[in-house]
């Protein structure tokens, strides 16, 4: 392979295999026993702990850290997993800096929170390394529930239902379960096939039948599911992608960032994955950062994130923005794409400066161009393929606090449902809570 970061166009193999392996290694390596001990010692065991309150799944964080500190990491893992069955993935992908660690009293005291996320990974790794499964199923209820979507919400819901003694069929349109954990998270956050390993481990609870390649609206209908099952949970995520609405958007090499990220996660050989020399990512959330950073790590020479509003409005946390900057990604704010230039293929993108005033975003007449041989759109996903019978609110499936939709016997949670904030951990909480409500409705 003779390509380098300077090779024009969208080409594979810009970096040597060893550099790619290094670039895509675990971004936050696990704590060893000693490190975990030192980190755990710092927890004050707060009353009504702010970290637990901040956790969407309400993990009893002081308790699990105390369990680590006293040499019982397995008990710590059970404390975590009893609230959040995907505690292993959440330990890797949660924006802890805006959740539990942001409110840690040691952040208040010293600007250095207890490393809750890494401690959670330590404990859950111990449980998973032990093999087997820490939870047992209750006596069979004879009820069957369809869970549509095997992402975080669906997995969490299915597991809790199975624990409560129900039989679950878990459908997913993709060839593999895992949802965004498997297809949508930067590779360096969940290395060595962790997402699949976690799904396999979770399924050890038993009573969950997985049917992949079955998509709602294509292979399944809500009516049929309702007829066949005692309840239906929808965790179908946001399958649609917003358009740029910029002229020339249809040119080749203007892609959805989520597809690029999914390709990257599924490839067996990072060196075979093509990436541009000059990459432009449009958007301001985690997806934009994941696409940009990974482009850079694949060997792109320049990578620029362009966001239409100010940095304070970006969905990506400060930590994520710093990560991007540290990898050499440039972040431009207050600019929006108005035209994609080029022939068949993109050559550059023209942006207008913006002003975010009380009346909304206004475009300046002043524009600039960024050279680009590859453009990733990361301006948000939208609900796609939701059954017509369901009430939709604000572009999402309307639900009450327990996850009930407007249709009796149908629950929803995760990114597709109202009230989510596009976080794995929130999806897990909603899936779990819907399961509890389904249980109450069926046998309560």
């Amino acid at each position, binding site marked *: 392979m003779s390509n380098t970061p300077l090779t024009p166009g969208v080409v594979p193999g810009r970096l040597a295999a060893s550099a790619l392996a290094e670039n895509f290694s675990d971004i936050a390596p696990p704590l060893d026993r000693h490190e975990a001990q030192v980190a755990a010692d710092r927890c*004050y065991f*707060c*009353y*009504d702990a702010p970290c637990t309150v901040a956790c969407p799944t309400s993990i009893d964080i002081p308790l699990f850290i105390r369990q680590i500190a006293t040499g019982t990491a397995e008990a710590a893992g059970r404390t975590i997993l009893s609230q959040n069955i995907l505690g292993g993935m959440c330990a890797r992908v949660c924006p802890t800096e805006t959740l539990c660690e942001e409110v840690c*009293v040691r952040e208040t*005291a010293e600007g250095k929170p207890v490393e809750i996320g890494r401690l959670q990974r330590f404990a859950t790794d111990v449980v998973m390394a032990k093999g087997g499964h820490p939870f047992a199923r209750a006596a069979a209820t004879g009820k069957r529930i369809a869970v549509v979507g095997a992402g975080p919400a669906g997995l969490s819901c299915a597991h809790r239902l199975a624990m409560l003694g129900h039989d679950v069929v878990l459908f997913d349109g993709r060839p593999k379960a895992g949802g965004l954990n498997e297809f949508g998270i930067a590779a360096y956050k969940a290395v060595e096939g962790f997402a699949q390993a976690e799904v396999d481990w979770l399924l050890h609870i038993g009573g969950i039948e997985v049917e992949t390649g079955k998509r709602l609206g294509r292979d399944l209908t809500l009516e049929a599911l309702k007829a066949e099952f005692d309840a239906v949970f929808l965790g179908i995520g946001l399958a649609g992608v917003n358009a740029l609405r910029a002229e020339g958007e249809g040119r080749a090499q203007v892609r959805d960032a989520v597809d690029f990220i999914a390709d990257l996660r599924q490839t067996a050989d990072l060196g075979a994955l093509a990436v541009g020399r000059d990459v432009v990512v449009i958007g301001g959330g985690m997806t934009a950062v994941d696409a940009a950073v990974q482009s850079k790590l694949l060997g792109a020479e320049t990578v620029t994130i362009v966001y239409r509003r100010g940095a304070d409005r970006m969905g990506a946390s400060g930590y994520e923005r710093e990560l991007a900057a540290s990898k050499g990604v440039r972040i431009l704010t207050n600019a929006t794409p108005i035209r994609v230039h080029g022939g068949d293929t993109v050559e550059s993108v023209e942006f207008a400066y913006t002003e975010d005033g009380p009346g909304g975003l206004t475009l300046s007449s002043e524009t600039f161009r960024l050279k680009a041989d590859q453009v990733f759109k990361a301006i948000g996903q939208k609900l796609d393929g939701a059954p017509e019978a369901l009430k939709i609110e604000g572009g999402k499936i309307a639900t009450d606090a327990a996850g009930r939709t407007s249709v009796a016997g149908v629950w929803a949670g995760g990114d597709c449902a109202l009230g989510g904030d596009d976080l794995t951990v929130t999806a897990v909480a909603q899936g779990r809570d819907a399961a509890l409500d389904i249980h109450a409705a069926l046998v309560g």
Partner: protein
Amino acid sequence: MADLSSNFVGIKSPNPFWLASAPPTDKEYNVRRAYEAGWGGVVWKTLGEAGPPIVNVNGPRYGAIWGADRRLLGLNNIELITDRPLEVNLREIKQVKRDYPDRALVVSLMVPCEEAAWKAILPLVEETGTDGVELNFGCPHGMSERGMGSAVGQVPEYIEMVTRWVKQNSRMPCIVKLTPNITDIRKPAEAAKRGGADAVSLINTINSITSVNLDSFSPEPSIDGKGAHGGYCGPAVKPIALSMVSEIARGEATRGLPISGIGGVTTWRDAAEFMALGAGNVQVCTAAMTYGFKVVQEMISGLSEYLDDKGIALSDLVGRAVPNVTDWQYLNLNYVTKARIDPASCIKCGRCYAACEDTSHQAILMKEGRVFEVDDSECVACNLCIDVCPVEGCITMEPLAKGATDPRTGAVVGDYANWTTHPNNPMARAAE
């Protein structure tokens, strides 16, 4: 820099920090290094009588307990007195004293409870030119099973008898080292004084098992699956030592008897506290064993800075807190304080709340936004909130002024009054 030079029962040293008789002072090599590091004095590890040397275990000698981040808080040992031949120790002592004439060098001794044994060893020690002897009546393990160490220290009559022998058979200053493994520390101290001791030193180590191995079910330190109690020392024992030192300092029969303070001295502050409670100097072991001899440098600079800040001499410090150590019955029951939580330094951990709500008087209110406030009508001023607060100075105890009403009791804060005159005391006497 304040003058830290010390004169303890006629033994001069450039500072009041001595290394206690213990593993760090077992031989010339260590003692030279200690002096070079700045230690003012050394009590040479306990010598026994001539003859076949003492035998130690060949497995672990120490056990420990730890605080956060594995900070060593308590150490226990089952090591015996020196296991090197007497003549080797004496030769080294003589050489070291000759080379470091300005440093204190005291030799610890432990021989059987027979006058002949003491008569035999004292001239040999005196001949080295050492500054004094310390009688080891304290070690609670091993030697005590042979009628020495704490076996002597637990019988005041033996203490008095042996001390008298020592004073009759040598001209050296004699310090009697006391065991804390007794019920009333004043009794052995009084006995030492009656026997003619120039000073007492305390505390020696406390009977202890530091932990139990939950796989082998052996106490630690484990010798082939078995354990014997050891002697406990280090920061964890300091409060016990301070109390015992104060009892001797204020005891009617022992007042004025010089005290060498021992027990968990780790920083200059610990040393100053011992001295304020009546110790003329301090002896250190665990801090040196944990951090090395260099720790004395912080003790020297710290104590010096403290004395300078206070504008007092070292001798002014000694015993300064003794008049304030009293019996409970004389404590002022009209001293009323209330906890105050400083919202600016509070980090909102809620530990004060949990402690008060679950285990005390429900006197802390948790308000919107994790704001913690003291309810004066419930606060008994127990101090637990301060003790569990991770932020030093965040919670304070503020006294109510005389004439103020305590919202908890409805009583007006009055003048000093104690239990001896309290109406609830059936033994109360009218105030004189």
